[in-house]
């Protein structure tokens, strides 16, 4: 097995898991949801294997580097962090209702990596600026943060599709109830916020060791700070101003838009130091 095979199998499994979760939601079949869970677990295993193999293959090619250094690899890893976090939440809180919103995000990320023709899957050696142990710390923490925000986004969406009082037969009755969503969204934002904070900090320390400046208002840096502000606003509104429910969900959705812009928008629309995420 090589990494390409493992990762395309992962793409297939994540797609299948998405179909299961959507089926479970649309047809109110608990069994399909359980199937989705196990497919997702299998997908995560192959995703992990794929990333590991890619790491090993870079050593076989003679330069050895962590597999986190271009858009393709970051998307693969983003799927990994989202899946890992989602599975953890499903196991811990025994809630699978919102898998219908999260599994498409997981699939979209890896499918974008696999199917977009402009995405290079080639393993290239690192340019000097990226050769640093901070690279791993920075990328891993940022993407754990993004995963927290992605899940919070999925949860927040439930407020906007779910009617206030769904009746017993409606497909919406299987979605977690408001209080649970609210609490879980908060937990996910907290998780994301902590890791985004560490991500920004490791990035700053790295920049200081590579260029002698911990902060240079590069567009990517600035957008990650904007994202950080949005979620700081979320936390203060919730903890200090007692915001809950739909209004707060809107803040979390805004935050995720900022995440997406930090991740993709900056690369395509603005220019700066970062070659990718």
């Amino acid at each position, binding site marked *: 097995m090589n990494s390409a095979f493992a990762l395309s199998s992962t793409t297939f499994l994540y797609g299948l898991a998405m179909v299961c979760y959507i089926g479970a939601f649309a047809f109110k079949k608990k069994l399909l949801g359980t199937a989705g869970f196990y497919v997702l677990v299998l997908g995560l295993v192959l995703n992990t294997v794929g990333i590991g193999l890619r790491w090993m293959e870079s050593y076989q090619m003679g*330069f050895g580097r962590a597999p986190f250094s271009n858009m393709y690899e970051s998307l693969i890893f983003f799927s990994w962090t989202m899946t890992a976090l989602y599975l953890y939440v499903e196991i811990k809180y025994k809630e699978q209702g919102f898998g219908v919103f999260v599994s498409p995000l997981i699939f979209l990320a890896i499918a974008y990596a696999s199917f977009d023709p402009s995405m290079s899957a080639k393993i*290239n*050696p690192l*340019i*000097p*600026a990226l*050769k*640093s142990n901070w690279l791993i710390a920075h990328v891993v923490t940022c993407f754990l943060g993004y995963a927290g925000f992605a899940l919070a986004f999925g949860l927040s969406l439930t407020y906007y599709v779910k009617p206030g009082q769904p009746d017993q037969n409606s497909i919406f009755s299987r979605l977690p109830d408001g209080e649970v969503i609210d*609490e879980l969204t908060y937990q996910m934002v*907290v998780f994301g*916020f*902590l890791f985004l*904070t*560490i991500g920004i*900090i490791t990035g*700053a*320390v790295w920049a*200081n*060791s*590579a*260029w*002698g*400046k*911990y*902060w240079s*208002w590069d*567009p990517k840096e*600035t*957008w990650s*700070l*904007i994202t950080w*502000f*949005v979620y*700081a*606003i979320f936390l*203060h*509104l919730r903890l*200090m*101003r007692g915001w809950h429910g739909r209004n707060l969900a809107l803040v979390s959705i805004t935050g995720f838009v*900022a995440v997406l812009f930090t991740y993709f928008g*900056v690369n395509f629309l*603005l220019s700066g130091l970062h070659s990718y995420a």
Partner: protein
Amino acid sequence: MKNKDGISRQIWVFFCSVKLTVYILVLLAVTSIIGTVVLQNGSPQQYVNLYGQGIYNLIQVFDIDDMYHAWWFLLLLLVLCINITVCSVERLSLLWKTIFPGRVRFNVNRYLKSKSSQTIDKTSSVKQLLEPCEAWLAKQAGPVTRQTDGQTTYLYAEKGRWTRLGVFVVHASVLLLLAGALIGAVFGFKANVRIDEGTQTGRVFESKTREPMTLDFIIRCNEFDVSFYENGAPEEFRSNLTIIEDGKESLTTDIRVNHPLRYKGINIFQSSYGTAAPDTVTMQMVDNQSGAEIIRDIRIGETIDLPDGAGQFTLQGFLPHFEFQNHDLGETFFGLVTLTGETGFQIGMPIQFPTFDKMRKGRFAFVVTDFEKRYYTGLQVTKDPGVWYVYAGFILMILGCWVTFFMSHQSFLLTLAPRGAGQSRVILSGKSSRNSRSMTLKLKQMATRLENQLNKGE
């Protein structure tokens, strides 16, 4: 704070609100976008070309061309700092007694009313249960305070009171970060310098203003190396530098990207490289009239006579990049040709295009055929005495966030009440400074463990 004086009280109240915090954070988030879409630190010409004169005037009024240092952006940050400070002082003075109480007190009713209380019925008397319960609670949460009320005994313990300080640590870290940034901006600098291999300098140029600055020591570049991967991408840039202080060599070391040299508070980073002007080059001059060909070595700046008294040639200099009709012709030498009785004109001799000067179709054609290739290393030289405050802020922010989000002040009350005939009822109640939902779960688990413990003892 307590004074009734109208205006200062009002100012205090204004800065004491979380609403203000949220507004400021929204403003910071929204305005920060501007600097990512509008060109920063460009030249006036660039702005006029991009946006037109009218908008450029607006850009100048609001310092949008350097907006993260604009007065209004710094003002927002200042308001944020005052807001944090005022809020923290106010909250801390309210919370001080809670965080550092002289004596532990607890209000039994507030615990018993809580819906999350767990009840365990036992067939032993309160007296028998007292000791195992106290030991168990002490293990869960620390020193136990006992209180009796008639037949009922209350056991109280708590942990993590200090975690209420976490939020203040987070906010203090924001202040520390900004203080560090300010110190860096006032007492630090960022400069660039190019040093040819084999040469030395103590003068660097401030990055933005290009003003020269003199360092307390001299940097010599002994050697520069660049290595490439098979696919042609650069693998490593390396400069071998020697620091010379008071005429003595005090240090020789390699620097690479991500591995700078730190010397006496000054940081030296590898930032770029290029081809340096050589001392001497080998030139070929062809006289198209006679067909004569001269090959000779010539130094930069040297002037030589052309054959037959036809004129003079001066080798003026070298550029790593020569822009010609929108093409970069690469490394190029320049010379001045002065034919007798005429005014001089300048010619270019790109290394990659040896026939370039021939195409001028003059009497003489000049080519640089060989030169000793040397690099210059491009260094960034910085000093930032604020960086340690910033790093301390980073650490405090992570620790503070951790404490705020994942720890809490938890207190537990065990109520042991008789139920007649040597039986008794144990009620476990608890409170947490954060996240009551997870406290309910925790109480359930704890009650199960307590019951097992008590059963074992029987």
